[in-house]
């Protein structure tokens, strides 16, 4: 049978990706430019026996997905930067309590209300550091409607596998534009469910690290009884202030994402014409589309340009960026903010190649011409 194809908005593709991944709970609060995600989920979830709830506010929405996930659901919320600001306390809670959940941030400008209907990429550091305390972060940044579908699936997989919140960042441009989506058949994309306990309820400890850095998670309210807290905790889930336990827990929660094996599993990049490149444009999300156009144009003009597009923004692809820094004369970071990821790139390549930056924050996308001009200036 022919595959189902449709012309969908990025936001609609996101909702369908979530459903493909087995999402059965959405808790949200409408916010431009993400609302279509909620709109589709509200129509589709009841059809598959899932639950949709519009909460009283962004904070309640975040609380609802933490609760739903602990009870065994695959839980999603969708918002924009101002919503993530409000959710930050509970994002930290989901980090320390190790609760899988997916947060969609369809980025607009900021700070505060900013320009609700304009695109932006100024939440990329919020995705990394937007809650207090040391914590690991996973953030994915698709740049097409099809990729929004597949990256939303991957976000659920990573959330469930690493037992933590995962953010998917795209922006108003990709969120609202329409492209053809080819719906994958069931089984075509990998769908990962969280590891259930293999021990009987009376032996269950929610943070038993003898099972590895990501201990199995039982469904709250089932036969498995356990304690959930935002305090540092011991293996049994109850609070502890024992130095060695706190230290081990804090370090494990970073290691489970930033360890070499986990990084290899989580990191995903796309490279275009980088093999012989003398200058590489570092761009993500919708900006990478302009950058790809710029690369073609520059190649026609005889400049050996390439594109490095991180699809996983966090953890940052340090290793590959370092290799490219050794290879090229210059890197140019293009982003719809006043310079955020550029500091990560600079941290890695400051001793190996020249670095340029082109930014835009007026509500219009960075154009290929702006990127081309910056590339020429840096060279």
């Amino acid at each position, binding site marked *: 049978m022919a595959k189902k194809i449709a012309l969908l908005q990025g936001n609609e593709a996101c909702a369908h990706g979530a459903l493909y991944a087995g999402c059965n709970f959405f808790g949200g609060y409408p916010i431009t430019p993400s609302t279509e995600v909620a709109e589709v989920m509200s129509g589709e979830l009841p059809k598959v026996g899932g639950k949709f709830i519009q909460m009283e506010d962004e904070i309640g929405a975040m609380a609802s997905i933490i609760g739903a996930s602990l009870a065994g659901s695959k839980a999603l919320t969708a918002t924009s930067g101002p919503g993530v600001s409000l959710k930050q306390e509970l994002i930290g809670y989901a980090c320390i309590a190790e609760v899988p959940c997916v947060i969609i941030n369809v980025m607009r400008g900021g700070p505060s209300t900013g320009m609700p*209907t304009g695109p932006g990429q100024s939440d990329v550091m919020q995705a990394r550091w937007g809650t207090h305390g040391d914590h690991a972060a996973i953030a994915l940044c698709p740049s097409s409607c099809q990729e929004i579908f597949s990256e939303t699936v991957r976000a659920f997989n990573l959330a469930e596998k690493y037992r933590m919140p995962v953010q998917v960042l795209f922006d108003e441009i990709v969120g609202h*534009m*329409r*492209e053809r989506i080819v719906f994958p058949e069931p089984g075509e994309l990998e769908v990962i469910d969280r590891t259930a306990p293999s021990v009987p309820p009376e032996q269950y400890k929610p943070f038993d690290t003898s099972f590895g850095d990501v201990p199995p998670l039982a469904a709250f309210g089932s036969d498995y009884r356990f304690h959930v807290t935002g305090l540092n905790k011991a293996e049994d889930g109850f609070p502890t202030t024992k130095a060695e336990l706190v230290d081990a827990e804090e370090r494990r929660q970073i290691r489970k994402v930033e360890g070499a094996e986990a990084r290899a599993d989580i990191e995903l990049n796309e490279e275009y014409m980088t093999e012989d490149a003398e200058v590489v444009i570092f761009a993500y999300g*919708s900006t990478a589309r302009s950058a*790809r*156009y710029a690369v*073609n144009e520059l190649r026609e003009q005889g400049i050996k340009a390439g594109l490095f597009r991180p699809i996983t923004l966090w953890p940052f692809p340090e290793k590959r960026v370092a290799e490219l820094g050794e290879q090229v004369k210059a890197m140019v970071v293009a982003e719809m903010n006043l310079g955020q990821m550029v500091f990560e790139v600079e941290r890695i390549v400051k001793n190996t190649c020249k670095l340029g930056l082109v930014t835009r924050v007026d509500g219009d996308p960075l154009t*290929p011409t702006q990127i081309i001009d910056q590339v020429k200036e840096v060279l």
Partner: protein
Amino acid sequence: MAERYELRFSGAGGQGLITAGIILAEAASIIEGRHAVQSQSYGPEARGGASKSEVIIGEAPIDYPKATIVDACLAMTQEAADKYAVGIKKGGVLLVDSDFVKNPPQGDYKIYSLPIMRTAKVDVGREIVANVIALGAMIALTDVVKRESGEQAVLAKVPEAFKDLNKKAYSLGFDKMKEVLAG
């Protein structure tokens, strides 16, 4: 540069031009299996008098999703023409509704006019199909998709009860434009 063809549909909010853009993108990408990206005016821009929808069509995946130099533009109202009939390529085309756009912006492109809204009202009897007439005319003017692909996409979009009405509207727009082109 990679082959890309850029179209802009503009008019008053509520005239169905965003839908026309979506149908064209469906004709190109779903029916003909090529690549298309559709975007539209949004937010405060969309709440004013004029609204627009852009479609980029290509044989390869479309990178930059917004218009760079417009190959073909439609303007249904004077306000839309003044606001959006800009950035048209040298040698490109502008189609205006002859009853509503009295002063089409001049440039290094060809200007065509058709009484789109009047055709909807008089020949079809329903103003609501003006966007489908305009779509038929734009396809006839640009040959950006096959006539049949456009029709198939229109019919896939409308409820059963309105299929004949829309089929008639699409054909009228297409044929009237071809007549104009034939001189």
